[in-house]
């Protein structure tokens, strides 16, 4: 049954996004053919026209679907503004993706496991208290989770800021490119200042 799974994947890939509308058209045409065949006794001419037209649409669309390359769903363009730098991230869909992008932008890497904790002054080795590997690993995990939480909050603030900028630009009658224009102007001002 691997051929069925392959065929299903191929078909599902081909009917994403705009192609869903095409699939609906094919379904509607097939329904028209079925109606046409059923009403042949009462309206032979109309039935013939309906059936031939429906079949032609089904054949043409099906052949076109099989021949054209798969097209993914359209994704909205989203942006992150980090201080003076503008990062465009197409296809950014989830909070986790935003966190990963921010983690990369800030060049944050997970720290290794500490061998001890300091109870006193870091300059005095007598104040070092060794910890187990399990405790050290737990510290690293906690750090990772808390950093993710902070980055997620930062992402939310950035997205909120972008949304506000875009809304302001739209209200003032500018197009969607006003955001990047504003960012460039701010950058120029910073450089000159």
């Amino acid at each position: 049954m691997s051929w069925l799974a392959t065929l299903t994947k191929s078909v599902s890939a081909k009917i994403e996004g705009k192609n869903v509308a095409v699939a609906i058209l094919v379904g509607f045409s097939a329904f028209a053919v079925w109606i046409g065949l059923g009403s042949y006794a009462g309206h032979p001419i109309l039935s013939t026209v309906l059936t031939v037209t429906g079949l032609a649409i089904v054949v043409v669309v099906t052949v076109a679907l099989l021949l054209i390359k798969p097209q993914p769903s359209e994704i909205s363009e989203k942006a992150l503004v980090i201080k003076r730098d503008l990062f465009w991230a197409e296809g950014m869909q989830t909070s986790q993706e935003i966190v990963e992008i921010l983690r990369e932008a800030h060049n944050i890497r997970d720290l290794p496991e500490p061998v001890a904790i300091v109870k006193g002054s870091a300059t005095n080795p007598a104040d070092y208290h060794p910890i187990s590997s399990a405790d050290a690993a737990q510290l690293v995990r906690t750090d990772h989770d808390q950093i993710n939480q902070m980055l997620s909050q930062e992402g939310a603030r950035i997205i909120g800021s972008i949304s506000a900028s875009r809304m302001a630009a739209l209200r003032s009658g500018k197009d969607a490119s006003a955001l990047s224009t504003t960012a460039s102007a701010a950058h120029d001002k910073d450089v000159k200042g």
Partner: protein
Amino acid sequence: MAEEKPSFLQILAGRSSAGTGLLFDPFLITDRVYKDQQLNLDGYTFKNCAFINCHLAISNANFSLDKCYFQNSRVFLSGNALKTVKLTALFARMEIPDSMRAQLDPDNAVTII
């Protein structure tokens, strides 16, 4: 009396505190000892931490150190951090203002904020 012009490094030091702010506050790490490890300092504030025989990497330079201790450790620079040091080295013969120096306490604790 003519006003004394600030040196290039003084201007640089004056701007450095105001021009590198980030949305993300470096994540605070306190009271830890790292030994024989490689660490990337970017994105963290280390407070009262010790680094023994460690390789410390810095690229964005968005880090802080508060009363930290170093023993037999090395720093590897890249990116903006490396460019900043190269520019500073260019003016190394000039007098470096205090605002560009790390704070070194009598007990060898290092603070860079």
